């Protein structure tokens, strides 16, 4: 018995140690990843919610309270709950008297390397974009990532014209990027030298998202004049 198994081992290397090593290491690694995920998950979700909250107030200068609304299948805004899809959700910002300052809208599109996610503020009174923050991007460090920090580029988004055309369904002039320093219209964005593709990507994301959302928000802004309940989530009027 003993010698038979010894012969067997000499002919074929035992496969039990191979299984043991692969399954054992896989088990240890799996446990490690899942426990780190479980431990850091809530912290990461909290960080992301805080970053979105901060960004909403940054793109809507003058806002002190916010409420989130979801665009329902009926084409009207409803107060957003837990499971609302971010693509269908806008964040209304209100000043101290409870008047609507503007609406922060999330948009995304392809950049030079990967998807760029951004948040921009639309003020229906002045019919302009009043702020823009990049939420996440993987643009080239030192070049493409200037879309997040470059002061001259960011100045484009203090009063970017997105006026509604006479038909109420589209914009008078679509948002477009032009070569750095050649901006002539209030709907144009001065690009960045050395980050042409990234700045054009921002303009394309804004053009697409504003064409979809701006006429809608302009028409339905009455529904957003809710009663905000301080910072954070509100369930609005039923």
């Amino acid at each position, binding site marked *: 018995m003993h010698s038979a198994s010894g012969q067997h081992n000499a002919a074929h290397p035992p496969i039990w140690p191979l299984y043991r*090593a*692969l399954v054992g290491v896989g088990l240890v690694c799996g446990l490690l990843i899942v426990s780190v995920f479980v431990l850091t998950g809530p912290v990461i979700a909290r960080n992301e919610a805080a970053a979105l909250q901060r960004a909403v107030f940054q793109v809507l200068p003058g806002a002190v309270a916010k409420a989130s609304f979801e665009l329902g299948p009926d084409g009207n805004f409803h107060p957003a709950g837990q499971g609302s899809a971010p693509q269908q959700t806008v964040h209304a910002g209100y000043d101290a008297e409870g008047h609507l300052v503007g609406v922060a809208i999330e948009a995304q599109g392809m950049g030079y390397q990967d998807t760029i996610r951004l948040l921009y503020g639309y003020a229906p009174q002045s019919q302009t974009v009043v702020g823009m923050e990049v939420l996440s991007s993987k643009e080239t460090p030192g070049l493409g990532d200037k879309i997040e920090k470059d002061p001259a580029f960011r100045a484009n988004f203090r009063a970017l014209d997105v006026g509604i055309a006479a038909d109420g369904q589209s914009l008078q002039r679509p948002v477009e990027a032009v070569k750095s320093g050649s901006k002539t219209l209030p709907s144009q964005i001065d690009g960045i030298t050395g980050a042409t593709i990234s700045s054009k990507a921002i303009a394309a994301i804004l053009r697409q998202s504003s064409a979809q959302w701006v006429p809608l928000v302009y028409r339905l802004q009455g529904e957003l004049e809710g009663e905000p309940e301080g910072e954070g989530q509100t369930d609005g009027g039923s």
Partner: protein
Amino acid sequence: MAGADRNAASAMSTDDFIKGLWRENPVFVQVLGMCPVLAVTNSAINALAMGLATTFVLVLSNTLVATLRHFIPRQVRIATFILIIATFVTVVDYLIQAISLDLHRALGAFISLIVVNCLILGRAEAFASKNTVTRSVLDGLGMGVGFTFALLCLGGAREIFGSGSLFGVALFPAAYQPWIVMILPSGGFFTLALWLLLFNHLKLRRQARDDLAQEVTQ
């Protein structure tokens, strides 16, 4: 006798740490892990963060590989090493997201690159799978610090010339026109070539001096 043994052992472990810094520097001598070396060194802060993240993964994977070295058969060693490395890279990724989203935004594109850094697999295969845990940790630390030092050499030089600053602090008057090429991918190749030139020159000079000293003694 026992004292001499202990001295020899401690000299050996010091050497495990020291060799990665200079004599066997992973970038300038072994020329390993070129992907992050070229891709992430366009600023000193990116280089430092990448170096530290790599060191973290290197030390932990060396530790686990050395701990399990008698348990992993040769036939499946590559698969298990890769699994261990990928696990620690994922852990680092989540930890950085939990510590600071801003830091993760600055590094996000590069963290996952650590999985395919051949320096880490190379140390697991060449060192940790054959040596004790203590020596493997020291080896990982030394190689990690040497790697970080090399990344800082490249990142510092490229940021100074390419952006006119170091760690984001402006060094030159506003009239300075930065050499954009230095922060572009091609600048990485130029800078790496110049550093390799310098290191090989130093090595040749030391060799010539050693040869001369030998001849004189003979």
